[in-house]
Each structure stands twice: as structure tokens, then as C-alpha cells.
């Protein structure tokens, strides 16, 4: 990418933070968002994307919650990168989240950088980007913000809420905060709390961002720069945790890049190095460094049981929601044991729950990839739930 192209991408990303190319709801001073920290956000905004048509009785809406570095562009080309939507394997006509039958909604999370209020949005009080002056947000706050969007769209009960990883955390929070508004819930590769190991990984990423001199105490946007190197390193580290040794090995092994013997230098000699560098570089093009700090922090603070006296089952007491919990055998970031904790709590709460562990070597990222068993499970669960809800099932 040339310097010019890069500058153009940065301008585009900068614009998306305030004036997204997707629909956006602006909440004024009269509609503040109260955060868990006690801070109040007003005015604020929520950018979102929809696919399909809302039916007459407004009963076919599915909310998709995106993961850490995702956004609302689930099944359309990305306005900054031009790449396909991040869940196009799952969302579309005839896909499990069938846009011919369901009205699909996905909002950019609070703290994000694609049009929902986040650190790169303009702080109305100063006219400058929020930076670290934005109050710290939690998963709970993200879900409250989404609930306000759903209110705005005139939808009372969501047919389903679905998401993987951080999106799965939001699904659990939705089911806990708004049980009567969620008919079916699909937390995939998720956990009811962020583990110490994951907090540790998050901290390494944040330190990489903050160690970049271009970070400038979080005020890089005013200076017209970005801590690209630090953010790229953070992404490279995180990306390893999304894969598995088996996946990395089968993809790259110990193969060299463009040669058959070691080059005895510190350029990207191995294919896996060059792959990670590419992942890091393409990430900085579309994602804001401060947003990375905010959303990883939100995950760290997530502990649904702690909000209910340490008993996770209490988070789901009396729930009528139908749950479908899915984990992957090779996911070591959100291992199956974490999903089993959720299932155990749902059992203890007498909730309707299905659980399946899908065998794959693709690691945590499996929820984003074309894994046939995932597609089949989600389709089966949603079709059955649609029948139970009385939605018309496609023949």
C-alpha cells in the first residue's frame, strides 16, 4: 500500500467514526446513556446495519453481536477495506441467518470506531476526538446501547440474539438483562467471564499500543498520526490466540518465505511471520488504537456471575429464552470448559439449553469460518425456534 492509499484509508476510517456510511441513530442530551461506571454519555450515537425485512408483527428480528474487532458490516463489503462482510458464511439468502426470512440487525459496539460513540468519535464538549476522556465502557453498557437501538427500531422482542467471542458475551448479557426481549440466544465460543489468561493477553496488547511513541497518551488523532506499530503488534499477538497450533502448522508449518533455507536475518523469514505481519498491517488500516484499548477492557471487566452474587445461575433465573451454546474443540482462548460453565448455570436455572462442542482444528476463529457443522447446528436451532415462535419456516 502506498503512502497516499494509506492516508486515504485513514481519512475514510476517521470519517466513519462520526459520519458512518451505514445508518446511525443519534441520541441527544434528552436521551443519555447511563454507564455501569456511573458516567453518563450524552449525546451519543449508535451505527448499525440491517439486512432483510422486518415482518408485520415485528417478530423476526435477529440481533448479531460482533466480536472484539468486528463491526456492523456483517454481510456487505466493508466501507474502509472493501473486503466482504465478516459473517457472510452465516448471513444471507438461504444461509442459516436467512435474510429472506429474518430481519438481521448488527450494531457497532459502544467504544467501537465505525460510527457508534467511541474514543475516535468527536467529543461534543471539546470538538476534538474523545481519546481517553471517553468513560470506560463495559459489555453491559454495549448491550444497553443496543437495547436503545432496538427500541428506536420499534422492536419489542428479538427473535434471536447471536454472536461469537465478545459477541457471545453480549448475547449472555442480553439474555440476563432483557430476558423477556430475547426468544432465542446463541452464544458461540464465549464465556460468562473473561479468564485471567485472557486478561493477561489483553494487557500485552494494550501495552504494545501504549508503548508506541505515536500513541501520544491517546491524543494521536489530533496530531494526525496513529500508533500503527504498537497496534499491529497487539493484533499479531491476539491473532495467535485466535488460531490453534494445528491450524498454524497445517497452514505454514516451518516453511520459509520465498526461499528454501534460512536467510539469517530478522526480516519475515518464515511464512508464519509474514502472515502475522500482514494481519497486523491490514488491521491498523481499519481499526482505531484507542478503541482497541476500550473494547479489550470491556471484555476484561465482563463477569456475569459477579453481577449476581457470584452465582451464574442467578443471571438466568426464570429465563424463558431458548439457548444454544456452541464451542470448538481447538479453541484455547474460550475453551469448551467455559461454555460448560454456562450450560451448567442454565441447567441450574432450569432454562431450555442445547449445547454442542464442534470438532475442528481451526481454533477460536472457527466461528467466523466456513465450518459445516456450525452452519448445520445454527440452522437447525433457528429453524426449530422459528417454528416454536410461529414464524413461517422456509420450505
Amino acid at each position: 500500500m502506498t503512502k497516499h492509499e494509506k492516508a486515504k484509508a485513514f481519512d475514510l476510517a476517521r470519517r466513519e467514526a462520526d459520519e458512518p456510511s451505514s445508518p446511525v441513530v443519534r441520541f441527544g442530551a434528552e436521551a443519555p446513556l447511563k454507564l455501569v461506571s456511573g458516567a453518563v454519555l450524552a449525546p451519543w450515537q449508535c451505527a448499525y446495519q440491517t439486512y432483510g425485512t422486518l415482518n408485520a408483527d415485528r417478530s423476526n428480528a435477529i440481533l448479531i453481536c460482533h466480536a472484539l474487532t468486528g463491526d456492523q458490516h456483517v454481510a456487505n463489503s466493508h466501507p474502509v477495506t472493501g473486503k466482504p462482510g465478516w459473517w457472510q458464511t452465516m448471513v444471507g439468502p438461504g444461509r442459516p441467518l436467512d435474510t429472506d426470512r429474518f430481519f438481521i440487525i448488527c450494531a457497532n459496539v459502544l467504544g467501537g470506531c465505525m460510527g457508534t460513540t467511541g474514543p475516535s468519535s468527536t467529543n461534543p464538549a471539546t470538538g476534538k476526538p474523545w481519546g481517553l476522556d471517553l468513560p470506560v465502557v463495559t459489555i453491559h453498557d454495549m448491550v444497553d446501547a443496543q437495547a436503545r437501538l432496538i427500541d428506536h427500531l420499534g422492536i419489542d422482542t428479538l427473535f434471536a440474539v447471536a454472536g461469537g467471542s465478545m459477541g457471545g458475551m453480549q448475547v449472555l448479557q442480553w439474555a440476563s438483562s432483557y430476558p423477556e426481549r430475547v426468544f432465542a440466544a446463541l452464544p458461540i465460543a464465549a464465556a460468562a467471564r473473561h479468564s485471567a489468561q485472557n486478561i493477561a493477553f489483553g494487557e500485552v496488547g494494550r501495552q504494545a499500543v501504549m508503548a508506541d511513541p505515536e500513541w501520544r497518551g491517546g491524543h494521536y488523532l489530533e496530531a494526525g498520526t496513529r500508533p500503527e506499530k504498537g497496534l499491529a503488534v497487539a493484533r499479531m499477538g491476539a491473532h495467535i490466540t485466535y488460531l490453534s497450533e494445528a491450524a498454524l502448522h497445517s497452514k505454514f508449518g516451518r516453511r520459509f518465505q520465498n526461499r528454501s533455507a534460512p536467510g539469517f536475518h530478522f526480516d519475515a523469514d518464515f511464512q508464519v511471520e509474514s502472515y502475522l505481519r500482514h494481519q497486523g498491517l491490514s488491521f491498523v488500516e481499519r481499526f482505531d488504537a484507542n478503541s482497541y484499548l476500550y473494547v479489550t477492557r470491556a471484555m476484561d471487566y465482563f463477569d456475569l456471575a459477579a453481577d449476581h452474587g457470584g452465582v451464574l445461575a442467578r443471571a438466568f433465573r426464570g429465563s424463558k429464552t431458548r439457548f444454544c451454546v456452541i464451542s470448538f474443540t481447538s479453541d484455547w482462548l474460550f475453551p469448551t470448559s467455559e461454555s460448560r460453565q454456562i450450560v451448567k448455570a442454565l441447567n441450574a436455572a432450569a432454562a431450555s439449553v442445547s449445547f454442542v462442542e464442534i470438532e475442528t482444528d481451526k481454533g477460536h476463529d472457527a466461528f467466523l469460518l466456513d465450518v459445516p457443522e456450525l452452519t448445520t447446528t445454527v440452522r437447525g436451532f433457528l429453524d426449530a425456534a422459528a417454528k416454536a415462535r410461529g414464524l413461517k419456516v422456509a420450505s
Partner: protein
Amino acid sequence: MTSLDRPAADIATAAPAKPSNGTHGARVDLLTVAGMIAPGARVLDVGCGDGALLRLLAETRGADARGIEISREGVAASMAKGLAVIQGDADTDLADYPDDAFDYVVLSQTLQAMRRPRWVIEQMLRIGRRGIVSFPNFGHWRIRAHLLLRGQMPVTENLPDSWYDTPNIHFCTIRDFVELVHELDAEMEKAVALDRYGRPVRVDVPWWFWNLFGEQGVFLLHRRG
């Protein structure tokens, strides 16, 4: 006369000879189990396979039925039918369920595949107010004859696997099971033996007759006290 000499006083009514509407094709042992369950009950089916019994219970008894199944294929097949099924191992996972979580816990043709059948029955009586167990009777005369005359592990319609690749590791006879029930201090509310055609064996016969001529036993249990 010990309680082993004759069937429990309250014997289950016979299973329907012909499948009724909506249950066409359902196995008679499943119909027998379903017949023991009160309408609208909360039921956990342990080792639910592809969900055939769960579906039968939901459709004919209006039950709030859930399942545990160890195989991914079984879980996927059940979920596609809209049933709530958890992939897991009953030999360990039953410990996670709270006391009295269900009205009925069912072990339909799965007891013999458990590593810890006694523990599993204890758990089912803790989790459920009532337990229903159905299993192939290893005391049936054909099995006895097979062993006696041919000196080989029997392969029958109900037990189609060879000894080396069978999932069944703990066979018992009706008589063995009844003894275990007494040991666990549980009460037998209903008991049915089914012959090789899935028909109920006559009820006015002693246990030894059931143990010889019943190919399957179906028992409804509950805790004492």
C-alpha cells in the same frame, strides 16, 4: 416370599398394541416409557440418541423434555428437531444438575452403556422425583441358551453388536436390576417386561418368568420417603 418372587403390586397397564396417531413407527419400549409419564411433566432423557423419545414426549405428553447425549451426531439430529439437548457424558455430567430438577429422569436403553450404572441411577433419583429405566434383559432365555449352547456372546435384534465393538459394557438381568433397586432403597412404582415383539409379558406371573421371557424391562422408580 420375597419381593423377588412376583412382580410389583402396581403393574403398569399394557402398552398400546398399535401405535396411536402421531406416534406411528415409535418403538413400543418408547411408548411404554411415554405411557408412564404424566402430561406436561419436566423430563430429562439421559442418552437421548437422535431424540426419538424426546420428540414423542413433547408431541404426545406435552412434556418439557430435555436430553443429554454423548455423540455429536445425536445432539445435532436432536437439535434439528427443535429439541433441547446437551452434548455431554452422563457418567460425569449428571452431578451438575440440582436436586429435584425434573419430574422424571429417563434412562432408555442406555444403562448398559454406562461406566457407573449404580451411580447414574443414584443421580437420576436425586435429580428427578421419579426415574424410568428400560434395558435389555440379559436373563432372557434366548441369551442364556446362546451362551449355554453356543458358548458365545449373543447377538440379537436388540443387541446387534459383537462383543468387541459394543457400546454396552454393563449388562444385567431383570433380577439383577430389581436387586439393585432394593439396595438403593428405591421404590418400584411400575414394572413392565416386554417380549421379543415388544409386547408386554403377562403381569400375573412371578419374577423368574419375566427374567426368562422378558427381552426388555421397563421400570418406574422413585425415592423412598
